């Protein structure tokens, strides 16, 4: 897979630091943020937008944020790319704003409405097959949560992606191994092994550290897209703030003032 030439690891790391910082700032103005889930996929989403997604003359690649609850990070990127304004971000979840906790089709830069888990794969398969019918070279990039990999609809559509030979579909799994009820390994042990199950559906499947952008780039460069491809990014929910890491409570909660101050200082240390 081709990585965009201008993609730089150090710039990506700086951006990811900035996303986390801005998300913590926003957390002080709204109660519902899903910060931890956004932290776990920061590096992956940054890589998709800056390293993988391509714009051609007449068409472009598509990205679907199937784990819609983490879309704050997508909003920040869309702000940086000029699709959304600072005013849009400042009015996140506010009465006159247009951005809510889940992405909504029609918002600039948002290519599908998500929020209910297990919908993105179907939409992605439909779009990817649409590209094939139209003989477009575009790809569909998708990110799903490990919770979504428990939805039957995801597996139904993965079967179809293989049937339809969709070599233009690349799905990232944000495998943070944590869901509302606790650690997936403990609450749902037969969820594992993932890679083998995905391969069993006639997909390419690879595992990688989803926070290590360098490893992801090295892996992606080697991958030949000859069938639908799943990149299992092993991640940490709440990555970047020590007291948030692996703690289910931060799935939804926003930090209070003291926690925020601690997190901002802590964030600098962790990333350094």
């Amino acid at each position, binding site marked *: 897979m081709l990585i965009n030439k201008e993609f730089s690891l150090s710039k990506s790391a700086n951006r990811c630091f900035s996303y986390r910082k801005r998300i913590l700032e926003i957390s002080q103005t709204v109660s519902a943020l899903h910060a931890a889930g956004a932290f776990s996929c920061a590096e992956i989403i940054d890589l998709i937008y800056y390293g993988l997604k391509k714009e051609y003359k007449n068409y472009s690649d598509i990205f679907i944020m199937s784990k819609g609850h983490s879309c704050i990070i997508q909003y920040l990127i869309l702000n940086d790319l000029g699709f959304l304004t600072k005013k849009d971000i400042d009015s996140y979840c506010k009465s006159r704003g247009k951005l809510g906790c889940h992405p909504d*089709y029609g918002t600039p830069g948002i290519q*599908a409405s998500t929020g209910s888990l297990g919908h993105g794969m179907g939409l992605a398969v439909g779009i990817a097959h649409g590209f094939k019918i139209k003989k477009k070279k575009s790809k569909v990039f998708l990110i799903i949560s490990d919770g979504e990999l428990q939805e039957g609809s995801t597996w139904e559509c993965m079967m179809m992606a293989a049937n339809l030979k969709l070599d233009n579909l690349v799905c990232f799994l944000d495998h943070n191994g944590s869901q509302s009820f606790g650690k997936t390994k403990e609450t749902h042990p037969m969820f594992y092994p993932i890679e083998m199950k995905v391969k069993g559906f006639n997909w390419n499947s690879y595992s990688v550290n989803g926070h290590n952008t360098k490893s992801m780039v090295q892996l992606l460069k080697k991958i030949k897209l000859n069938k639908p491809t799943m990149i299992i990014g092993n991640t940490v929910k709440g990555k970047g703030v020590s007291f948030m890491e692996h703690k289910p409570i931060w799935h939804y909660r926003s930090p209070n003032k003291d926690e925020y101050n601690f997190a901002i200082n802590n964030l600098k240390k962790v990333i350094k």
Partner: protein
Amino acid sequence: MRNKFADVIYQQGKIDERICVVVSDISPAGSIEKFRKKFPNRFINCGVAEQSMIGIASGLALEGFRPFCYTIATFALYRPFEMVRVDMCYQNLPVTVVGMGSGIIYSTLGGTHHTIEDVSIASSLPNMTVLAPCDPDEMKLATEWCAKRTKGPVYMRLGKVGEPILTKNSIEKFKFGKIRYLQKGNDVAIITYGTFMNTAIKLSKYLEEKKKKVSVISCHTLKPLDYFGIKKMLNDHDNIIVLEEHVLHGGLGMQIRNISSIEKSRSRIQHFHLKDKFIHTYGSYENLLDSHELSYSKIIRNLKL
């Protein structure tokens, strides 16, 4: 209706490259096979996986296509309901879900295969259009409308096989969003939709023998409902008979009573519908209708004029 639908969709597929057919393991018999052979890329069989049928069709619509999803009505609408709601309706995409064999036509297959509350369920979804053409000719016009529209999801309720042509001598043409008079009289109006039109026509003949002047109306567009058309129908007739192979809740009869109440109409409305009960008996279609007081003979018996 099934074969005619396949013919129509094939014709539409020929003139418009955006038309796709996404099915869930329906029998390859019938002329849908023609579409598959001619346009293999635009025909997707998702297997017994209705959630993927709706999700993938919605993805195709996001990429500019006009997909038609097609399977038995219960499995087309109920099984993937959240995909219908979120993928199709919330995003307001031009996907048509065609529910085949709706009502209780699959009389011996049991309650799992009966579709008795689909109009209510589909109508309750914002953005959704609900169509129920009464014969193959009306279905052709409804399908062509679906193929040509630019946005918005549709649920189209169809019968099964062998429906006769009932609209050949209709005094009005099919017009989306308008009730359609097949014939006009000024005593009694019989209004229905879908394949129950057969019974409505039979009933009109019976009433005509009793010297009544009868209007027969196809309410093919159940949502958006033709409010002013129904208001006029209430004004023009003293007796209204609503027939529907559907439960009371959220059906046509309830909506007509609502309009009647708002408009303070004095017309008498008699509503014949399925009971709020699953059917656990088997036998012919007529047997099942009879068990819910909806057979022709029971309607005649209970009718007050």
